[in-house]
């Protein structure tokens, strides 16, 4: 009964979305206030219905209702409760339902919270949002119904892929989806602005909090995914340039560019067409991110069950939304005149370089991801593009970007005084130079590029702190009051830039100075790594809730002194017929000692275990940096100016009341 109600709610939501996709926008064209205001109601109703539908599916998972096909395929009665709940979005159908739910929630949030936006713009935005809803709800109802029944019901389910039974992964897809789908509202704003034919600083300001919220979620989602790959998969790495990672990274890059270009539109009334284009592209890349893997277009470790029928429908949806919006852009955007002029050395110019470099980086990733497809279409040759391409092309773009990033906040709008800025930064330069020499001395060899990159990361740290300290006059009396008086978004910027530098430190450390060994071990075997000595004590069998584990004990010593004991596991999940590696890690800020075990297959090594040891220096800075990025976004989002002192269309630039 409940699954049918869920399905019914989904159908009703589609009807609400259909009404919302026509009525408000028609009202905006004919200046019918009542029609325009209807968007408010339909957006909330649509969201409520989808919350109900999602709740119904979750209920089926929680009570293990094996008459529902989706539950049979992705759950098992013995599974821990958290993963039963997470199973709701573990499948293609369930994750799609989550996707439209978040889409509707964002629409409802705009309907309810954004009461400072003119009615016509809001009505158009919500209609565009509803177009996306209609597309995906109909896709679900026609091809991917999560509430399909199965008869006769089996006795038990087939279990969720054990690799996916991890806390990080249980919350990784929802976060990633909030990010992906959050950009839908920015997209809707952009399309509405194109239809209206008007983009101005007020528009940029209205869009900013939504961009920030989506960007934060996406940052968190990607970081969690990477964290999961690192801790759970036991691959001893945190980023693999896998197509699925790339497609989540591209909207992040485009969204980051959008955040910065929207600032220029807001403050200086220029970069308008570019901002609109970025808004469209960010969501287009998000769509690509959600669906490229499902369509079976590219191969990846993340692949869902592939169904060409679905692939064509999805491609059709993508074509309509992406090509439609880009055609609208080609038609309407040329009429948008740029505003303020600026000198070659200015904040605007800095942000322009930032945008160009990020866009290039994004295009590089897009090219690398789709290249196998292009090549196969043209020459029939099949290849996969791996890390060497991305490392060789992506790093040379990002290093100059980071150099400019340190400089940018020091530049003033319109025309900046470069000699003055450089003079201000000369002590930072000296400190960075000394720091780099220290790094080179500690690293003692290793790749030169890593030392240079580390120097550039140090430069970003130094320049960002210097900028912040100068703004709040840290060393003079009353600094605390000035810190409080500064807009939070300014602190957010410093925090996020610092976060990126910290993340970079982690990335460089963990890729350039990593050491690993693989050896066969029997009780008593000792293996040296990165100054530690790891001794294999033995293995014992342990029974888990829905798996059997073989747990190894390893003693870790340094210079003869006991450091810690580590317990890596090999788990066998009998129902899903799969084994997973549970590594164990000694975590410190200086680096992670990462151990995992596997049974050797060959007969002549009976009783021996394969012991894999990895030392990843500085890797925790990655997660710390990601956290700082999200925190920076949160600080910026909490800025009072984004909420009070509603910007008005007629007002000249920068005329909003200061607090």
């Amino acid at each position: 009964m409940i699954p049918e109600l869920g399905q019914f709610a989904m159908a009703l939501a589609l009807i609400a979305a259909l009404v919302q996709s026509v009525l408000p926008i028609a009202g905006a064209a004919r200046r019918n206030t009542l029609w325009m205001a209807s968007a408010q109601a339909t957006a909330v109703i649509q969201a409520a219905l989808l919350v109900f539908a999602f709740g119904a599916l979750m209920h089926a998972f929680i009570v293990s209702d094996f008459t529902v096909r989706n539950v049979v395929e992705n759950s098992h009665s013995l599974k821990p409760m958290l993963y039963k709940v997470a199973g709701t979005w573990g499948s293609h159908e369930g994750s799609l339902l989550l996707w439209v739910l978040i889409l509707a929630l964002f629409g409802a949030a705009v309907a309810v919270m954004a009461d400072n936006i003119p009615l016509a713009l809001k009505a158009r935005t919500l209609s565009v949002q509803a177009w996306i809803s209609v597309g995906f709800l109909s896709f679900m109802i026609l091809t991917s119904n999560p509430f399909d029944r199965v008869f006769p019901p089996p006795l038990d389910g087939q279990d969720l892929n054990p690799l996916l039974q991890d806390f990080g992964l249980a919350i990784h897809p929802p976060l990633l989806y909030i990010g992906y789908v959050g950009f839908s509202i920015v997209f809707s704003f952009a399309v509405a602005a194109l239809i209206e034919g008007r983009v101005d600083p007020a528009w940029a300001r209205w869009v900013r909090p939504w961009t920030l919220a989506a960007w934060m979620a996406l940052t968190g989602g990607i970081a969690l995914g990477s964290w999961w790959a690192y801790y759970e998969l036991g691959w001893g790495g945190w980023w693999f340039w896998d197509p699925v990672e790339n497609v989540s990274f591209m909207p992040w890059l485009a969204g980051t560019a959008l955040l910065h270009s929207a600032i220029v539109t807001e403050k200086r009334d220029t970069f308008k067409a570019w901002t609109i284009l970025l808004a469209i592209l960010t969501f287009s890349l998000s769509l690509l991110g959600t669906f490229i893997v499902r369509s079976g277009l590219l191969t990846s470790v993340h692949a869902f069950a592939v169904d060409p029928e679905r692939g064509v429908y999805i491609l059709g949806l993508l074509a309509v939304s992406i090509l439609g919006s880009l055609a609208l852009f080609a038609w309407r955007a040329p009429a948008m005149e740029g505003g303020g002029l600026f000198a070659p050395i200015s904040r605007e110019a800095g942000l322009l370089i930032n945008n160009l470099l990020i866009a290039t980086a994004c295009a590089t990733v897009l090219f690398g991801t789709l290249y196998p497809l292009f090549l196969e279409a043209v020459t029939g040759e099949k290849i996969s593009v791996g890390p060497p391409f991305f490392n060789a092309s992506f790093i040379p773009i990002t290093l100059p970007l980071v150099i400019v990033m340190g400089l940018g906040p020091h530049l003033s709008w319109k025309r900046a005084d470069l000699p003055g800025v450089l003079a201000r930064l000369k002590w930072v330069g000296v400190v960075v130079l000394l720091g780099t020499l220290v790094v080179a001395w500690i690293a003692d060899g290793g790749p030169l590029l890593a030392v240079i990159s580390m120097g550039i990361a140090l430069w970003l740290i130094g320049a960002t702190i210097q900028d912040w300290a100068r703004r709040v006059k840290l060393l003079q009396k009353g600094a605390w009051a000035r810190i409080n008086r500064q807009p939070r978004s300014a602190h957010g910027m410093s925090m996020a830039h610092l976060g990126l530098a910290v993340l970079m430190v982690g990335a460089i450390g963990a890729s350039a100075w990593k050491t690993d060994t693989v050896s066969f071990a029997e009780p008593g075997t000792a293996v040296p790594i990165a100054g530690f000595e790891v001794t294999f004590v033995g293995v014992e069998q342990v029974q888990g809730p829905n798996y059997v584990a073989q747990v190894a004990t390893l003693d870790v010593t340094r210079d003869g002194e006991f450091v810690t004991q580590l317990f890596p596991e090999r788990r066998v999940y009998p129902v899903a017929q799969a084994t997973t590696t549970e590594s164990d890690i000694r975590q410190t800020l200086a680096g992670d000692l990462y151990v995992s075990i596997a049974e050797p297959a060959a007969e002549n090594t009976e009783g021996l275990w394969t012991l894999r040891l990895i030392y990843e220096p500085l890797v925790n800075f990655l997660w710390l940096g990601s956290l700082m990025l999200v925190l920076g976004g949160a600080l910026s989002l909490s800025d009072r100016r984004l909420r009070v002192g509603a910007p008005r269309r007629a007002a000249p630039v920068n005329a909003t009341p200061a607090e």
Partner: protein
Amino acid sequence: MKRLLFAAPFVLALIIGGFSLWGLSGGRDPSSIPSALISQPIPDFALDPIEGVDTPGLSTEDLKGQGLTLVNVFASWCGPCRAEHPILTRMSEQQNLRIVGLNYKDTPENAAAWLEELGNPYERIGADVTGRAGIDWGVTGVPETFIISNDGIVLHRFPGPVVGDGQRRFQEALDAAKAAQ
């Protein structure tokens, strides 16, 4: 000129869309990336026989100097394996081919029952209970079938079941391998 510039994103997206449409149509299989093992010697491995089945186990040495050999990766839990099993059996009988099995992540009881029910065309079967040998072979899914030359070189990797159109393509690869011998 300016208009052209603004239309550029549209045109680019159209091109990417065109490639994608091509990619979705016409029986293209993105997972059939060529195995890194092609033209390489087979990996070193040694597997015990399935418990309770008379067929001997499988190791690297068993694939050398015995003529062209098919290595079929199968499991009792895999539906498509059931579909291709009679076809492979018939092919090996009619064309006098040597076929060996790699029983992937299976339990001995299930595997034995499966072979009992469907027949056992395999000269040797290695029980890869842990999936370890599967990793060495670069197995991405079950079923998969490898064509191995007389001197133990991987000539072809065929992912997916040998049925329907797959049978035709597999036969082509097999004919090419025979001609090369």
